[in-house]
C-alpha cells in the first residue's frame, strides 16, 4: 500500500487530517461545500444530489490522505482536489441517469481512480471493513470509535464503561479481532 515515506511536521494539514482533528474536518467540510453545490445545481442536480456527492467526495479525499495517495500542501490544495473528485463523481452520476441532461466531459478522472491493483485491493478491504463495522456489536463500535476516531485514552474509556484500564485494552483487541474475522468471513468483494 502506498504511504507517505517521510515524517510530516506536526502542524501540517495532512497530519491534522490523519489524526482526525474534528475541528479541522468540520472546517474543511463547511468551507468547501458551497463551491461543489453551485456546480451541481448548475448542472441539473438538486440540493440532495449536492449533499450526497459532496459527502462521497469528502470521504474519498479523506481516505486518500489517510493512505498517502494524496498529500495536500495546504487548504487550497485540498479544496482543488476535493472539487475535482466531486465533479468527477457528479459526471459519473449524470452518465448513469441517461435520460437527463449531460455535461460535456473533457477530463480524465485521474484524481480518484486508483491505477494499481494493490490500491484497489486496499479500497475493497476498507469498504468491507466499513460494511462489517455495522454488524459489530454496539459496545465494540462504541469502543473502537472512541479509541481510534475520538482519540480517547484507555483510561477515559475504562471510566466510561466502568472497566479497568487493562480490560478496556483487552476488549479493544478483542473487538479489532472480531471485526477482522467478520471482514474475512464475508470476503473482501
Amino acid at each position, binding site marked *: 500500500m502506498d*504511504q507517505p515515506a517521510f515524517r510530516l511536521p506536526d502542524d501540517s494539514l495532512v497530519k491534522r487530517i490523519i489524526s482526525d482533528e474534528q475541528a479541522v474536518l468540520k472546517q474543511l*467540510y463547511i468551507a468547501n*461545500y458551497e463551491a461543489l453545490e453551485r456546480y451541481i445545481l448548475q448542472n441539473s442536480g438538486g440540493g440532495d444530489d449536492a449533499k450526497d456527492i459532496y459527502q462521497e467526495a469528502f470521504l474519498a479525499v479523506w*481516505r486518500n490522505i489517510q*493512505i498517502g495517495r494524496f498529500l495536500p500542501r495546504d487548504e487550497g490544495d485540498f479544496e482543488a482536489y476535493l472539487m475535482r473528485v466531486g465533479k468527477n463523481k457528479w459526471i459519473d452520476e449524470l452518465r448513469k441517469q441517461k435520460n437527463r441532461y449531460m455535461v460535456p466531459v473533457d477530463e480524465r478522472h485521474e484524481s480518484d481512480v486508483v491505477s494499481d491493483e494493490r490500491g484497489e485491493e486496499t479500497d475493497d478491504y476498507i469498504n468491507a471493513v466499513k460494511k462489517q463495522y455495522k454488524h459489530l456489536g454496539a459496545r465494540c463500535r462504541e469502543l473502537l470509535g472512541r479509541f481510534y476516531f475520538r482519540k480517547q485514552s484507555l483510561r477515559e474509556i475504562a471510566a466510561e464503561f466502568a472497566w479497568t484500564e487493562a480490560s478496556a485494552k483487552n476488549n479493544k483487541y478483542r473487538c479489532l479481532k472480531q471485526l477482522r474475522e467478520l*471482514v474475512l468471513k464475508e470476503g473482501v468483494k
Partner: protein
Amino acid sequence: MEKKPSYDLHEEELAYISEYLNDELGADERSVFDERLRDDPVFERKVEEVRALLVGIKEANIAEQLNLFHAELQPEEAVISTSSKPLWQRIRWLAAAAVLVLTMVGLWFFRSAQPQEQKLFSRYYKADPGLPTLMGTSDNYEFEEAMVDYKTGDFRKAIGKWYPLLVENRSNDTLNYFIGVAYLANSQPDSAVVFLDKVTAAPTSVFQSDAYWYKALAMLKQGRKADALMQLRRTEHHAKDSLLNDITSIP
C-alpha cells in the same frame, strides 16, 4: 492484500501492529518494528492489512459525523471563508453585502421556481410553540435557556446552545426535535430534515407525529412534493388530511 490472506495474524500481532500504526510505541520499539518491516515481506503485508482495518474503522466513524457537519452549514460561513484570498478579507463587508444580495436573489429565484409548494408551506406552517420553561435549578438549565431563545425567535442562538448538548446525547429525541424545528423556523429546511429524521426513526418518541409533520413541511419548502406526501401520511397532525389534499391537487 489478498482476499484470503495466506498468513495467520494472531491477536498479539494484531495488537502490536495496531499500536505501531496508532503511534503508541516508544522510539526503541518503533525502530525494531521498522527494521522488521523492511526485512520481512509477509510482515509488511500484515501491516498493510491492519492499516486498512484501522482506516475502515475511522472512515465508518467519520461517515456518521458528516450529517452533523452538514447541519452547521450556513450560507454566509461557506462563502466568506476564503482564507486563500486575502483580498476578500480586506473588503469583507462589501463581500458580505454581496453575499446577502446574492442569497436573497437566490431565495427569490428558488421561491419563484416552486410557487405552489411555497404557498402551501406558508399557509400551513406555524412554528412549534416550544416547551414551557421553568428556569429552575434542574440539570436542564442550558436546555431551558435555549428554549427561551427559541421562543423569543432567536433560532440561531437556540441551535447554538442545544447543539453542544447533543454530543453527550446524540440520539436524544427532544434535542433533535427542537434543533430540527429551530432550523425550519430559521428557513433552513435541509438541516431541519437531518435532525427530524433522527426523531422519526425513534418509534417511541412522543415527538414522532409532530416530527413527521414538520419534516413534511420542510420537504415541501424544498420543493420535494412526493417525499413530503410520504412523511405526511405518517403524522397524526390535525391538518394532515387537508394538506394531503392540497398537495395532491398541485398540478
